[in-house]
């Protein structure tokens, strides 16, 4: 007998993850008996808190091959990205004013760069190829003697493609340019070592790796080169002056435990989730024609699948699978009424961006859930295609891309 399925099914692990119960257990004492302020230097309450923070700092550092002193705790990856980019921009203003990033970055990076543009910095937004990866030749061509920072994400939050980070790191190092990577989706999921990849800064978040929300970190290289950052929050000088503010001790303890679990269980987690992802992909392809995977299959996070279901609009698809939590690149599901800028950047056409679903699998996804989701999608897509004028036209042999549409 198969296990009964509990609905709704969560398949949106890129958005956030549940906190691992082992992480919760580790955190609990730090809300009550060990509630001290880690900055209190003159009594045991403070010492306990500080000790717990330092243990977590080492756990996070160990996960990415860093030294504990290189970990700056923040409120999350958005803050970490802001600190890295604005901190470098201000600190190295004398050296240059040019930043290189990429069009498919997270808004925490894109909008930070846009703000800097208003303040007189120059930003190059590299395009991506059809598979979602940046072309290293484009990167090399964009570098000038004014370039102070390259910021390219490790893995994309929508399509899960993993950029050639080590190659980018090597280019940056050769040119003497600092390299920051938004590693939120990658750390804890795939091997990520700051020295192998030659990154100078990396943004991380606990809640994407089975830790609590509201805590993240920025890795800041201390040696070869020593990276200096202007703080964006002023105050008591916590975190070696780079991030003032009383430390979120229970959150940090949870982040540390989550990082340790990811390090110890990465191999088995990856094997399991890859098999589930392949099963989902296979079942969808068996049941439906004209579905397209967005982004490179080879260079991809093991738990991500992003598929466009041609001729079916994403929000109507989500309505049909309302007991499954996934995300869509459809404009109708975003506040801006614009389809996903990441999918548009792949050049696949807006219609396919509107038709996309992002599946994010994780530590508690089961085979039964994968089968349920695949079967449900096949039946809903089939039903919606029967009422899709685009599917009808395509089946009549009309080339939709050459049709004249009356655009509103």
């Amino acid at each position, binding site marked *: 007998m198969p296990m009964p399925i509990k609905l709704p099914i969560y398949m949106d692990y890129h958005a956030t993850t549940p906190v691992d119960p082992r992480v919760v257990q580790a955190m609990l004492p730090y809300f009550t008996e060990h509630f001290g302020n880690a900055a209190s230097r003159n009594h045991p309450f403070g010492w306990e808190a500080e000790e717990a923070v330092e243990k977590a700092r080492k756990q996070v550092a160990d996960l990415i091959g860093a030294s504990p002193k290189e970990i700056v705790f923040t409120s999350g990856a958005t803050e970490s990205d802001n600190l890295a980019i604005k901190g470098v921009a201000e600190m190295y203003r004398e050296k240059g004013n040019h930043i290189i990033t990429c069009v498919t970055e997270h808004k925490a990076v894109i909008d930070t760069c846009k703000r800097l543009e208003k303040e007189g910095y120059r930003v190059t937004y590299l395009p991506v190829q059809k598979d979602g990866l940046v072309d290293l030749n484009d990167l090399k061509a964009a570098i000038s003697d004014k370039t102070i920072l390259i910021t390219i994400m490790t893995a994309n939050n929508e399509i899960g493609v993993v950029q050639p980070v080590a190659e980018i790191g090597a280019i940056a190092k050769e040119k003497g340019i600092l390299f920051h990577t938004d590693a939120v989706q990658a750390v804890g999921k795939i091997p990520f070592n700051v020295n192998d990849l030659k990154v100078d800064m990396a943004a991380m978040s606990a809640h994407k790796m089975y830790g609590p929300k509201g805590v993240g970190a920025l890795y800041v290289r201390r040696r070869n080169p020593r990276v200096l950052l202007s703080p964006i929050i002023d105050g008591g000088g916590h975190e070696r002056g780079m991030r003032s503010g009383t430390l979120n001790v229970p959150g940090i303890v949870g982040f540390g435990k989550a990082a340790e679990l990811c390090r110890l269980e990465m191999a088995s987690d990856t094997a399991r989730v890859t098999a589930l992802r392949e099963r989902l992909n296979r079942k969808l392809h068996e049941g439906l024609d004209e579905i397209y995977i967005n982004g490179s299959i080879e260079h991809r996070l093991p738990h991500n699948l992003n598929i466009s279901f041609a001729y079916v*609009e*994403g929000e109507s698809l989500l*309505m049909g699978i309302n007991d499954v939590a996934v995300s869509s690149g459809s404009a109708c599901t975003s506040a801006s009424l614009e389809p996903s800028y990441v999918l548009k950047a792949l050049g696949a056409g807006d219609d396919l961006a*509107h038709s996309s679903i992002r599946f994010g699998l994780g530590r508690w996804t089961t085979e039964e859930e994968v089968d349920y989701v695949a079967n449900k999608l096949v039946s809903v897509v089939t039903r919606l295609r*029967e*009422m899709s004028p685009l599917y*009808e036209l395509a089946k009549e042999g009309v080339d939709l891309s050459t049709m004249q*549409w009356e*655009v509103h």
Partner: protein
Amino acid sequence: MAYSNKVIDHYENPRNVGSMPKEDPNVGTGLVGAPECGDVMKLQVKVNPETGVIDDAKFKTFGCGSAIASSSLATEWLKGRTVDEALAIKNTDIVNELSLPPVKIHCSVLAEDAIKAAINDYKKKQGAGKTVDTHAQPTA
């Protein structure tokens, strides 16, 4: 996004999904919207040439649940109306009936456009010469 019960009902049990032969002189076809905008509606009316009454209406829609519901509702309302009565259907009627939120008003506008386009196509086939402006003016 929370949907009204009427939108969910039309989404789950769409009325009058299908196609009628485009070549039929008594069938008017309207195809509005664009795939890159995320909405395309095809709406067809079959008119009794003796009475001018719409005997049948069919739709197919690529779009969100509200777009599907707007076009499904439109086909329900079209049946039994005369061509001129059909042209009196306003997007605001659809908005009110389906309780569409402001971000979904464009779905009702598209449905009004589809009605007008279908009836224009019918009139053109009938050689009526006179057509109406196919662009609905959103009034909500």
